[in-house]
């Protein structure tokens, strides 16, 4: 068996414009990314550089134009059943209560309703929402919805967890709380995590490894850094650690040019 949980090999994604078939846009090119079992890898890059595209390829939601995806050594076709996905935007079903949202994945896998609900209840308790199972998503705050989504993803006990800027919509305090909680849950189970963010602080504080992507189009990895900070970490405290500052300076040196490049491109597109 391969010791890589998820391998994206020579991935290229080219989109054709819907209106004009001769117009093409290459979002991702020549990208190889490997995540070991139990490893926490963050991918940072300027906004709109194709980070989410990469994650969708890993999830099996999007088929790459060329290249291959391997999951624990097996080539992937269709949905990646060993992965759980936490989306950036609202992904809960608004017509189901929090408890039923967490239970739905278990029910999809054929678990009887009563058992699925009791397991879902335990997961809700683990993310601190024990008394909120009967609330509908619109009755929950943004942070609570994210916790519910986290419980929904983790309830299926996936071997790979894909996260697409899951906390970008949260305020800074809630965000740090949730980052620590995710780290605790991860430390207990040691799953492979591929974490997408545009926040370098978040990436360094949480990961074993940080991959920097270039600005689009034709995004590819341009730097890779091993984060050798001791675990367990507290995301707020670790930020003052001298090694953190050193790493941050190093990575930012690579990232800054790309961010500026990406920003310029957006300005040009708007003009």
């Amino acid at each position, binding site marked *: 068996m391969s010791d890589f949980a998820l391998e994206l090999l020579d991935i290229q994604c080219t989109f054709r414009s819907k209106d004009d078939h001769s117009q093409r846009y290459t979002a991702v090119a020549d990208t190889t990314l490997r995540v070991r079992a139990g490893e926490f890898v963050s991918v940072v890059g300027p906004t709109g550089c194709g980070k989410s595209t990469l994650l969708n390829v890993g999830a099996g939601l999007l088929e790459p134009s060329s290249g291959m995806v391997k999951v624990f050594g097996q080539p992937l076709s269709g949905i990646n059943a060993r992965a759980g996905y936490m989306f950036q*935007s*609202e992904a809960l*079903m608004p*017509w*189901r209560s929090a408890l039923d949202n967490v239970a739905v994945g278990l029910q*999809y896998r054929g678990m009887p309703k009563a058992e699925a609900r009791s397991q879902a209840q335990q997961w809700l308790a683990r993310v601190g929402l024990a008394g909120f199972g009967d*609330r509908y998503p*619109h009755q*929950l*705050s943004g942070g609570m919805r994210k916790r519910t989504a986290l419980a929904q993803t983790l309830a299926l006990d996936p071997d790979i967890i894909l996260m697409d800027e899951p906390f970008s919509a949260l305020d800074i305090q809630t965000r740090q709380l949730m980052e620590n909680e995710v780290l605790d849950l991860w430390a207990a189970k040691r799953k492979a995590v591929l974490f997408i963010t545009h926040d370098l602080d978040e990436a360094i504080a949480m990961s074993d490894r940080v991959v920097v992507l270039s600005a689009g189009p034709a995004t590819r990895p341009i730097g890779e850094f091993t984060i050798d900070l001791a675990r367990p970490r507290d995301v707020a405290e670790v930020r003052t650690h001298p090694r953190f500052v050193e790493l941050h300076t190093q990575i930012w040196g690579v990232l800054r040019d790309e961010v500026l490049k990406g920003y310029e491109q957006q300005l040009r597109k708007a003009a």
Partner: protein
Amino acid sequence: MSMRPSERNARAWQIGLLVVLLLLWHFASRSDKIAFFFGEPIQVLGRVWSWFMPVGLPPNPLFPDGLPGNADIYQHLGTTLLETVLAFVIGTVLGLAFGLWLALSPAASLILDPYIKAANSMPRVILAPIFGLWFGLGIWSKVALAVTLVFFIVFFNVYQGVREVSPTVLANARMLGASQRQLLRTVYLPSATSWVFSSLHTSVGLAFVGAVVGEYLGSARGVGYLILQAEGTFDVNTVFAGIIVLTAFALVLDGVVGLIERRLMTWQPQAGETEKI
């Protein structure tokens, strides 16, 4: 208390307006010519009494001949309501099924698109004679007419509802391992249902319209039939009484739908409801 119209005394103003209109109608109908075309409110009221009440009234100043208590509207009203409910249920189920099918099968929707547009823009009331020919003068020709009205409302709403499912919710359900059938049951159907419910008020009203118009064009029973008969003998009072009864029951149907809607749609944020944290 101020007499200016406001939220608080709106009810009083509404009732006041009704009284004024009724009085105007009453005094205008003192003239025989006007009474012939517009009826008399007191006679209309007497007709409604005779339809619903099993006991008559002895001769009195308002009704010099007294009022018979026939209580004979129930079978007609029952027929009309039965047609409405049948058309509503059949039209909704058909609309739901077709809407889901077309929204989830791009090939079918591509081919059928012009036919659907044509069928929707056709003035469907004109189908009534054909339905009469096919299904006879019983209730089914009326049900068929009303179904054609209900079907398209529900169909377009379901179609839209499925199309507008949030792509993130859909992708999430797929990542959680939903099969095609489970997607239909747990994502498409609930999403479409909310759109159907927003159209239920319109569609129950149209079911009623279909049933009454069907009866009016040819039947042996129903409130539309009563109105048709009265019109044939220039009995304007009965026509107006029929209109009032129909309006009242349309309001009742609408209220029932509202009740069901509130029961089933608790998950939807109400306008003005604050977020509970």
